[in-house]
Structures are given as structure tokens and as C-alpha cells.
């Protein structure tokens, strides 16, 4: 009897441990996790519905997580925290766990946007992530959370649709190889510029005759007398420039690893 009790306990424990993994595999997971409490329930549910719809349509999870302070979850940078959350929550769809995660940390208004998996990284290229953040960051900067998250989902859908059509959004110059005609043209122009500077310096040594402009060689030693030497402070001006704190990162693991960016909003 005791043996049966032990076996039952082990079985229950096993089911408890395997449950999240099974949930992930079957798509039973939250796409929107609002720990920071930025959304109303109705808004969260609507976003959850949209995110689930997009994710299942393209086989690539689109997630949003908000937290109070990311350092409570994981040490390191906000980008590292996003990776930890992605791994811990077992996010992503398919065998490669393809997906996109936007993490907001409200303490210092940090964000991180990471993609994972071959399909995830192919759809959300570095340039694509730039396009994405350009779409939703202004709304987040204005604390317009619901509109910002909607823009995030809409733009993600657009990028996934283009990737599915075989034309992922990528920087126009991304396909420029080392021997692209434009690169060769620039090499020639830059090479000619350097060559011209060297040749003109060498040619300059051929000329040694110039009319004198000054007469400093004939200054009387210790003869200069200053009668007025005034330095008056008049005013102070100030200019401010916003520091772009955006950091692009990527982790190894081939095309299926993490890649992403982080910054402030």
C-alpha cells in the first residue's frame, strides 16, 4: 500500500512539472503578462486575443511582458532579463520556439525587444525591430500604453506577413556584399582621395618660393608691451542633447538564438 502511495506522489509531481511544457507545446500560454498593471482587464483580454490570433496564424509567438523592476526578476541588463523570462516562461512556438518578446520595466522605463528561433529572427531582423520600435515607442513615451501595445501587435503582424510572403523587412543595404558595385565605387573614390592627398603632399615639396605674409622673425625680443589685457565673462549658453541609449544585442546560437535590442522609452 505504501509503495502505491509513493508511486502516486511521483506521478503527481511529474504531471506538475511537465504541465507548463505541455501547455507551451499546445499554445496554452499567456501572450500578454501585465505585472506592472498598465492595462485594464478588458484591454488586456483584447490584446491577448489579438496576440494569440497573430501568433497562431504565423506560427511565431508575439509576447508582451510588463514588470515593475526587471532587476527583481533577473540580474544584469534588461536584455538579459528578457532572455531569462523568454526561457523561464518557455515562450515561443514550434520546435525552435519562434517568437518575439517585448519587455517593459517601469522602474527606469527600460524596454527590450528580442526575437528567438530561425523563423522569429528571419521575420524580425535588426532593421525590422527598428521599424517596430519606431512604430510603438512614441505612444509608450506618452504613457499611452494600450495604443502603444496595439501598434506593437499591428506592426508585428505586418512584419510576419511580409516574412511569410518571402520578403522579410530588412535594411535595403543588407544584401550589399563586399564586392557590390557600389562598394567598389566607394573603394575607388576613397582610394583616389587618399592617393590625391599623398601625391599633393609630395608635389608640395617641389615648391619652395612663397611671398612672406608676416614679419615675426623681426620682432624685437621682449619688446611686446600690452597696455590692455581684459577677459570679461559675458554670458553662458546651454544646449541639451538626448542620449540615445538604445543597445543592440544578439546572442550566439546560430540563426535560432536570441537577437534583440534594448533602450529607454
Amino acid at each position, binding site marked *: 500500500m505504501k509503495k502505491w502511495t509513493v508511486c502516486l506522489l511521483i506521478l503527481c509531481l511529474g504531471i506538475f512539472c511537465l504541465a507548463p511544457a505541455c501547455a507551451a507545446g499546445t499554445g496554452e500560454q499567456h501572450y500578454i503578462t501585465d505585472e506592472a498593471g498598465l492595462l485594464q482587464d478588458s484591454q488586456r483580454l483584447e490584446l491577448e486575443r489579438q496576440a494569440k490570433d497573430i501568433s497562431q496564424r504565423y506560427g511565431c509567438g508575439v509576447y508582451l511582458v510588463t514588470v515593475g523592476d526587471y532587476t527583481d526578476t533577473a540580474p544584469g541588463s534588461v536584455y538579459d532579463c528578457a532572455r531569462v523570462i523568454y526561457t523561464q516562461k518557455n515562450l515561443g512556438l514550434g520546435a525552435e520556439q519562434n517568437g518575439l518578446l517585448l519587455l517593459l520595466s517601469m522602474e527606469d522605463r527600460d524596454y527590450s525587444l528580442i526575437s528567438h528561433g530561425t523563423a522569429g529572427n528571419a521575420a524580425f531582423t535588426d532593421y525590422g525591430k527598428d521599424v517596430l520600435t519606431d512604430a510603438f515607442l512614441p505612444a509608450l513615451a506618452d504613457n499611452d500604453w494600450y495604443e502603444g501595445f496595439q501598434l506593437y501587435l499591428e506592426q508585428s503582424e505586418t512584419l510576419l506577413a511580409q516574412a511569410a510572403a518571402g520578403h522579410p523587412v530588412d535594411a535595403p543595404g543588407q544584401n550589399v556584399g563586399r564586392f557590390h558595385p557600389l*562598394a567598389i565605387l566607394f573603394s575607388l573614390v576613397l*582610394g583616389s582621395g587618399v592617393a590625391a592627398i599623398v601625391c599633393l603632399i609630395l608635389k608640395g615639396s617641389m615648391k619652395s618660393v612663397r611671398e612672406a605674409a608676416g*614679419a615675426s622673425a623681426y620682432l624685437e625680443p621682449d619688446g611686446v608691451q600690452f597696455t590692455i589685457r581684459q577677459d570679461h565673462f559675458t554670458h*553662458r549658453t546651454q544646449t541639451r542633447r*538626448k542620449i540615445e541609449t538604445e543597445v543592440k544585442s544578439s546572442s550566439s546560437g546560430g540563426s535560432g538564438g536570441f537577437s534583440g535590442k534594448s533602450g529607454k522609452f
Partner: protein
Amino acid sequence: MATKTTNFQCPACTGPLHFDSGTGGLLCDYCGSRYTVEEIEAQFSQQEKKTEQETAQKTQRTWETERMGEWGPDADRMLVYTCSSCGAELLCEKTTAATSCPYCGNPTVVPNQLSGALKPDYIIPFQQDRAAAMAALKKHYQKKFFLPKAFTEQNHLEKLQGVYVPFWLFDGTGDADIRFHATRSHFYRSGNYEVTETDHFSVRRAGTVPFSRVPVDGSSKMPDDYMDSIEPFRYEALRAFSMAYLPGFLADKYDVTAQESAQRARQRLLHSTKEVMREDVRGYETVTPTSTQVEIVPGAVHYALLPVWMLTTKWNGKTFLFAMNGQTGRLVGDLPVDWRKFWLTFGMMAALFGVILLLSGLPQWIARAILTLFG
């Protein structure tokens, strides 16, 4: 009437004497005797008095038959003189003060050109000789990558002549009052912003800047840029003028007056006065003059003969002029450029740098950035 000339003759053998830049004295080419400038000056003074008495006696007895007018309008700028060594009657420009006879090679000084009101105040004797000038020219050709090889091989020295060039030496003082707008910036970070604070200052400098003996050549035959380029002369070697320094060299008297030369001196003084004031404004990142008042207070003007070696070479039918400071040995002169070599070198370097850059990936990165921005 032929102009009276002076021939510095050796008291020992009556051979012609030359100024020797190596020893600073006069040297007889024939017997090798050496004399100091002072010794020869004393001898010349006695000889001149004697000659003047003899000439006065002759003048009373003879009619004047030679007239400058016979040479027509050219007579205004020409001078006739008789070589005191071989007796040849010679023509030279009126500005010529010292030359040599083309028949006997006798160095001759035309004293009237450098006497009375025209007498120079100072002279710097030659300290560099002919061999030094030749060596300096050879050195000038070295390490000139674009110099045609044929130039050094085929060109030959047409003329090498030591010339005492007339210079006006201007003393003057720059009286300046200049105001500047100066700025100094510092940066710090405030939250997500980089803040630049710029302090603005009103700066004023006023004072006097004295200059001593700024040279401007007084010969229209000498190119101004060449004479400027061989500067500076070291004035500690200035000597009171004596004709004993002239034998063996050409010497010209000025044909550009001090008044005409003053404008060039004034410009140079103005430029340097502003520079001195500007250089005193230190500790700022930007300094911009807002008002400038500079007056040049003229001082004394001195007339001096300064030593210059003029070298002329000919190549491909073109004449190349070089000038060397006869005191310091500084030689200047523009050299021809082998344009074929220039373009060949340019092409090879452009290709080489182009390949290196291409392999470095920089052009690829630029192309990507441009396509990303404008694509």
C-alpha cells in the same frame, strides 16, 4: 664720359682682389696675398685722393668729347665705364654697382652708384661661397619624388652669380587694439541628456609690437617672392658698409625707393601685429576677432646690401631660377613636376588604397548605410 671705376688691386703684385667669404678678407688671385677689409680701405682711400688730383689736372687740359646723349633714349638707363685693368669701355645698367669685366674678368666696383646719398648703411658679407651654392642646389634636388630624372641628369647650370641685393630695412611698431569673442565649453550628463554649457567672453588686447629691420628688397630685377623665401638674415653679422666687400660679386643699387617698398613692409607688420595679439588670447576653444584697430607707426629705414647667390639652370628650353641666402645657405626655387610620373603614381596608389579599403569592408559598410538611409 666713361664712369670712373674702382679696381681693388693687390698692393704686392697689382693683381685683382676678391672678397673671400671664407676668411672675411680680400684675397689676391695671382700672388695669394691676403688683406683685411680695413687695410684695403685705407689703401683705397689714399689711391682715390691721388687719382682725383690727377683727373682734375687732366680735365683742365682736355676737351670733353664723350656725350651720353649719343646713345639715344637708352642712355638714361645705361652707364659707360672703363675697366681699370684692361682699359675696355664697357656698358652696364645704371643700377649696377659692382660687376666684372667680360674681357679680363677683373672685378670692378662702380663707386658713384654707392656713394653719397646712395651709400648703403649696412652690408652683410657673403659667408657662403660658390661651392656651397652648388652643393645646396644638389641637395635641393634630393628627395623630390616627382622631379623628372632627366632634369637632374640633363640640366646644366647656366649662371651662378653672387649678388649683393639692395634691401630696405624697416623699423616700425604695430599699435593694436583688438577685441575678440571667445568661448569655452564643458559637458556633463544630466539624466538622459548630454548638456553642453558654453561660457562666452569679451576679450580685449591692446599694446605695441615693435619690429626691427624688416627687409624688403629694393631691386625690381629681383623677384619679391624669392627674396622673401630666403629670409631670415641674421643681423648680428651686419657691418657698416664698405666697398671692400664687393669685389668678386655683382652689386645693384636700389631702383625701388623706400617709399615704394614701405607698403609691403607695412602689410607684413600688420599681419604679425594681429598674430601677436591673437596668440596672447589663450585658454579658449574659439576666438573670433570682433573689432580690429591696428596702426603701424613708422620708424627708421636703413639701406643695406644683403648677400644672395642667384642660380639659373636650363632644361627643356625653360629657365629655372634658384636663390640662396649668401649668409645662411637657405636655398629656394620651384622645381618642375614629372606629370607622367605624378599621374602614374596617383593611379597606382588609388588602386592600392582602393583594394585595401575594399578588403577592410569600409566601403561595404558605407554602401549599406547609404542604401539604408536613401533606399
